[in-house]
């Protein structure tokens, strides 16, 4: 690992809400919350005006309305967000090829090697900020630091429209009094466990005997120790080098809890088609099919079955999902359903020898062609006619390209 790296973390401010405010001037300067299209959705992002009232991501619309009666709800338009995000990532890539897309509104850039071309890191950050503002009217917060951990921390320190630098010589000073929960990767549970050792700040974490941490947390213990010291040598991994995707799946929270088999089947067919279509697009097939069910009390469980031959055929995925469903005894109505294929293998497409099978394969690819041009579910199964289809909230695993590029709708 190269010494003295310079990493930028760019975090778009209230991304979905800002995009909406830019595309509709009537929303500018007003409290706006972006929600999913499903009936029982949550707030995915809200504008800074809404945050001033105490509205937060993850609240349901009722809670949010309590906090801010004049809150304007906007149903998210994922296509708009993923389009904008791709353009912004394109701007970043003009400065360095080492861009790691962390989520739809966050990215890490390793600019160590391009300073001779573009000047100082602050200069690069300023240029990127300016271009994003000029082109989209959006602001972002940038953190500049020697590694990803600290860069993310730095971008968080000033919002919105911030630019924060943690130079190597100031790392120890910054970490000394920093509460551990502000580090990316330390959640409520780890925080509690560390508190039991009397560790509340990163300074305390860095000084704590690493052997005790190792005994308690295993390999993570050592990593925690380094996190406390502000040391992180994880590289910035551009998409094409990222680890291979291990599953293709979709899930959806239903508009209303379902207990009718026929209604559940319709949702499974829709999810299977989404999974099959994405798998076919990236030429992967799965040997294991998994069905996930969530009850209204949030009990969630998954059951899977192994196939003798891998598939990416929507119909076969659906049949397997139904087979799993039929082996379950549902104790309650169903709140969420998910279908996933795993145990993936990549393969170019072998055509079937028998004509009836070949027709099925050719029909699927003809459907995919039409749907690629005219949008998901333009051509679909008869049983899905008249139903609203598609993922309603974009997944945190979204990436601008590759299998994870869920077609937003």
């Amino acid at each position, binding site marked *: 690992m190269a010494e003295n790296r310079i990493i930028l973390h760019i975090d778009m401010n209230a991304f979905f809400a800002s995009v909406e405010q830019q595309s509709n001037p009537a929303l500018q300067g007003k409290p706006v919350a972006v929600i999913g299209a499903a009936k029982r959705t949550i707030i995915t992002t809200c504008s800074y005006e809404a945050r001033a009232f105490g509205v937060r991501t993850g609240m349901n619309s009722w809670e949010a309305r309590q906090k801010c009666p004049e809150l304007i709800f906007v149903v998210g338009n994922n296509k708009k967000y993923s389009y904008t995000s791709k353009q912004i990532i394109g701007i970043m890539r003009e400065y360095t090829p080492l861009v790691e897309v962390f989520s739809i509104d966050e990215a890490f850039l390793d600019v160590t090697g391009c300073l001779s071309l573009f000047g100082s890191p602050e200069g690069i950050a300023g240029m990127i900020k300016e271009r994003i503002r000029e082109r989209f009217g959006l602001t972002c917060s940038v953190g500049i630091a020697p590694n990803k951990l600290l860069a993310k921390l730095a971008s968080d320190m000033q919002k919105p429209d911030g630019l924060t630098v943690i130079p190597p010589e100031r790392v120890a000073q910054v970490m000394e009094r920093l509460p551990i929960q502000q580090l990316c990767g330390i959640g409520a549970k780890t925080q509690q466990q560390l508190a039991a050792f009397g560790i509340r700040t990163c300074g305390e974490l860095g000084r704590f005997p690493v052997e005790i941490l190792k005994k308690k947390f295993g390999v993570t213990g050592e990593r925690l120790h380094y996190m406390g010291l502000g040391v992180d040598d994880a590289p910035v991994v551009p998409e094409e080098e990222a680890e291979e995707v291990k599953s293709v799946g979709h899930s959806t929270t239903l508009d209303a809890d379902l207990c009718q088999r026929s209604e559940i089947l319709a949702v499974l067919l829709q999810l299977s088609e989404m999974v099959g279509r994405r798998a076919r697009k990236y030429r992967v097939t799965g040997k294991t099919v998994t069905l996930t069910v969530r009850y209204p009390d949030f009990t969630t469980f998954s059951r899977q079955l192994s196939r*003798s*031959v891998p598939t990416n055929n929507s119909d076969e995925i659906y049949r397997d999902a139904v087979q799993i469903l039929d082996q379950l005894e549902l104790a309650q109505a169903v709140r969420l359903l998910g279908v996933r294929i795993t145990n993936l293998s*990549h393969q*170019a497409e*072998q*055509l079937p*020898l*028998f*004509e009836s099978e070949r027709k099925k394969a050719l029909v699927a690819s003809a459907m995919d062609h039409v749907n690629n041009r005219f949008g998901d579910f333009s051509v679909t199964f008869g049983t899905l006619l008249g139903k609203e289809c598609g993922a309603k909230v974009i997944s945190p695993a979204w990436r601008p390209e590759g299998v994870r590029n869920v077609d937003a709708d």
Partner: protein
Amino acid sequence: MEFRISKEIFMKALQRIQGIVEKRNTMPILSNALLEVQNDQLFITATDLEVGMKSSYPTTVIREGKITVSAKKLYEIVKEMPDEEILFTTKDNDWVEITCGKARFNIVGLSSEEFPYFPKVKEESFLVFKNEILADMIEKTSYAICYDETKYNLNGIFIKAFDENGTNVLKMVATDGHRLSVAQKEINGNITAELSKGVIFPRKGIFELKKMVEEEDGEIMLGFMDNSAVIKKGNTVVVMRLIDGEFPDYTKVIPVANDRIVQINRDKFLHSLKRMSILSSEKFKGVKIDVNPDLVIISSSNPELGEAREEIEISYEGNGISARFNAKYLIDVLSVMEQREVELKLKDELSPVIMKAADGEEFLAVIMPMRL
């Protein structure tokens, strides 16, 4: 029950049934072998309810009777015994004692009453085949058997006999839905009703049959009863339940309008494919075949490694044609052909290709290409 038997015979007898006994342990009795002694003979039976095998061996019977014991454990025990005579004795509550030299094992068995019924075989309507005919035909088709359990009607070899211009012909067909192999040979004797209609032998049964016919030259007897095929050779009887399903009409799969005929040397083609497939990873399993007049170019490319390409002279007159194939499918076919010259019959890049010997009608394979 009590008997003495030579270690050598007992070990071989137990080895033969290892492939038959149920390994998934869904019904414990099916992991066991049934041992019966009467009239100075030991009968060993194993079955998984789909394929069953019963063989008889000479033994010295002290006390007649029967018992079942774990086929795998008994084989492991006998295999490691010294090369002396083995004494096998049943005790109360289905316990079994096995002694050989100074070694003694006491293992627990299960009552023979729970063991599935093995049908009595009548020998009237058996057909007789030369071992090497069946061995050859199974070798030329079995690699194409389908392993997808949901396509149960393809999980075996379809066997059919018919009269072709006054001579009786036996045909075997296997397919996994991507490729198909057909082997045929002239046979002697009459055609039974079952064979003239066509039957599907299960994959597991085919592999048992393959072992039997490959053991030695000679003859094997084949008959049918109660939806099962019965195979008899020497002291062994195998009964396998035929697959209860319709084999697809394979004749429709064999193209009739493939008029672009390429003749190519088998060895050169096979070795080239083996070389080219080194660079085809899981993601890009295919090799590309570009057929030009008098020349075929075989190539593969792999974005993670690089690319490879090879030319072979062929005899072909006609327009150029390109297609991509799973290299393994081509290699499987070439590996079972003896002839020096192979004929490829093509139509276009998305139609199945026929592969056969340039001079011979006893074997033919059809392979579906991959999408370009």
